[in-house]
């Protein structure tokens, strides 16, 4: 298959530029930018006049709920939702059921993705420890051989710091990336909301800032000790941004991301016990939100993830402390990214970079850019479509949005994965 994408505004996150440039693909690769290779005959032409052409988005953390919780969502439903929203590479954390602590589960996930038509690339993050119990190391080398791109304990605790140190050392020896969601379970206790005037007023068990930062301080020390290349996921606190900035200044091999919703929502959005705003880590304060945005702009925060967590309706139809945490975020990832540009946090190429080339480089994925010889994962967007966000209309099976009623811009028109058009919007 050869495709000519013409007249579009190419947003190149590597060169930080926007220009009217045609793109040519053949097979699964990009074969021409600006001008076609000699003898190129397009079998399909996509007119992108007035539209944006961006690399397919790379999501470093998304739960598809399969295997184990297919009541909530599954690989077929969520990959369909992903491509409809411009996401072409997904990384699954190891807390599936069963956990990604053995090669059979890795194979199962890829098998299910193939059965669903391989609409988008799925990458698995292996478990650090067996069943994520934090006690015995998982067979990391075998998992790596089976395609796991990194190792993580998915926010679950190690039984002690020694096991964590050993896990990080072992991963470093295998040359593998370590992913950590810094979390001190004792300080988390049974908390469900950021510790602040809001949790005090609502009488909600509170999660202090130190539940993240105390763990992060220890984790950074262990990076220094073990030399393990470490990515910190879903940071929520201003103080965490400072600590990462300092760790980078000290030359430690660290990177960091935050979830898109942390850049827009705060603890005040809980309102009167809105369970769609229940997240882990919790929605923090206005100043935390501001610091995350600053960290994003100055490069301390390298990338943004969706932290997609689709739920069935019943999971949220409970009193706040008993509801399940997490937001269904595939459908709002791209429009919120555009809002970051509208709110002058980042330029368009910068925000696309945070969602494509940056996570791809950290995770070592062949994705995230539109360049000669690279995989043709390409998304074409109409920036002039305005729509009102409603969970009911989500393409994800999870309707649990925290952005009900928000006004958004932009719609995905076409998504190409490895040179194949896997999604096209219905005209009109």
């Amino acid at each position, binding site marked *: 298959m050869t495709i000519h994408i013409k007249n579009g505004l190419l947003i190149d996150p590597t060169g930080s530029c926007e220009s009217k440039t045609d793109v040519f693909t053949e097979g699964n690769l990009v074969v021409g930018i600006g001008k076609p290779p000699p003898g190129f005959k397009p079998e399909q032409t996509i007119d992108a006049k007035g539209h944006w052409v961006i690399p397919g988005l790379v999501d470093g953390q998304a739960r598809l709920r399969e295997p184990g919780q297919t009541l909530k969502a599954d690989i077929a439903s969520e990959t369909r939702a992903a491509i409809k929203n411009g996401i072409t590479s997904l990384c699954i954390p190891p807390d599936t059921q069963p956990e990604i602590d053995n090669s059979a589960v890795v194979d199962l996930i890829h098998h299910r993705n193939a059965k669903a038509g391989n609409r988008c690339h799925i990458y698995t993050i292996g478990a650090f420890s067996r069943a994520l119990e934090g006690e015995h190391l998982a067979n990391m080398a075998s998992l790596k051989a089976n395609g796991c791109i990194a190792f993580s304990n998915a926010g679950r605790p190690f039984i002690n710091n020694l096991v964590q140190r050993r896990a990080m050392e072992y991963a470093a020896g295998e040359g593998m990336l370590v992913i950590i969601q810094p979390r001190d379970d004792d300080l988390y206790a049974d908390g469900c909301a950021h510790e602040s005037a809001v949790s005090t007023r609502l009488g909600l068990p509170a999660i202090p800032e130190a539940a993240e930062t105390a763990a992060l301080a220890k984790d950074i020390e262990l990076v220094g000790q073990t030399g393990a290349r470490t990515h910190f996921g879903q940071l929520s606190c201003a103080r965490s941004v400072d600590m990462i900035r300092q760790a980078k200044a000290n030359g430690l091999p660290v990177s960091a991301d935050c979830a898109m919703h942390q850049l827009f929502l705060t603890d005040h959005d809980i309102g009167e016990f809105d369970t769609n705003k229940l997240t882990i880590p919790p929605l923090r304060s206005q100043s935390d939100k501001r610091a995350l945005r600053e960290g994003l702009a100055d490069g301390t925060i390298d990338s943004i993830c969706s932290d997609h967590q689709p739920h069935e309706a019943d999971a949220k139809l409970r*009193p706040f402390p008993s509801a399940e945490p997490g937001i269904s975020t595939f459908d709002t990832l791209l429009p919120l990214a555009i809002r970051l540009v509208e709110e002058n946090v980042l330029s368009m190429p910068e925000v696309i970079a945070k969602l494509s080339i940056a996570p791809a480089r950290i995770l070592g994925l062949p994705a995230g850019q539109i360049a000669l010889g690279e995989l043709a994962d390409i998304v074409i967007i109409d920036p002039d479509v305005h729509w009102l966000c409603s969970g009911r209309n989500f393409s994800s099976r999870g309707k649990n949005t925290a952005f009900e009623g928000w006004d958004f811009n932009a719609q995905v028109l076409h998504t190409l994965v490895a040179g194949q058009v896997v999604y096209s919007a219905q005209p009109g």
Partner: protein
Amino acid sequence: MPANNLQLDENGKLQHFLSIEGLNQKILTEILDTAGTFTSVTDRVIKKVPILRGKTVANLFFEASTRTRSTFELAEQRLSADILTLNVDTSATVKGESLLDTIHNLEAMQIDMFVIRHKDSGSAHFFAQHVRPGVSVLNAGDGQHEHPTQAMLDMYTIRHHKQDFTRLRVAIVGDIMHSRVARSQIHALNLLNTAEIRVIAPRTLLPVDTESLGVQLYDDLEQGLLDVDVVIMLRLQKERMRGALLPSEKEYFNQFGLTQERLNRAKPDAIVMHPGPANRGVEIESSVMDGNQSVILQQVGFGISVRMAVMSMIVGRSGLQASE
């Protein structure tokens, strides 16, 4: 949905009673005035009025309660309601039925009003959001959030003894962190324009930014009690002693227990209150609890009138008709 939208109908009348926060001074005053008319009912030989005749009230206690449940039941009986009381920890939710299904099953039995106590903060709002229009929810305590009828009976007791809130200094002593009563009391005292609200507690029993509720903090009981008109002691749950929150009952009593000597620092006519059940010798000395400044038993009695008032306001009739 904001609490005030949920609790008040389009005419500003009470349709649910979930939290003091979100209400206004007018409604609180109306509750106190209406409760006053019911106090005379409860003093009559035949203590019944027909305000809730033909209505069915379900008391759902997902958490144990003696005093609140029995005063709600008496209030309902005196308003002539039909009553269904469920101690739900022994009921369907244990079998895995969701809270929402429990609500809908009870609604199918034509319940008009739910009185609910549940361990989760926000559970009363949750119920109110999911019942059918026309069905009302009264919060009998949701987690660590609010216990609004308790706060209103406390306000009734204070007004009974002190009349004007705008001149009062009120001290609330003890476990603010875990206390839904304290949160409701603070909101109510502020709405009634209390001159000064003090909160006296060890740091481990104080949630962050407590000042943001509109109170002044004291670490020291003796300083905090100086010249106050009302002392509200909070119950210290025994299980709190087991964790790292407090070293021991003895040390707590030494630091924060109310003794006659300490009470003497308050105004001579200061009253002592406690929402119960009290731990004698832990937060309050027996002689103070039984002493002549204590109004603790009165509070219990007023609880019936206040709960009658709230329920009668919700069904839309005035207390004056009731006392005729």
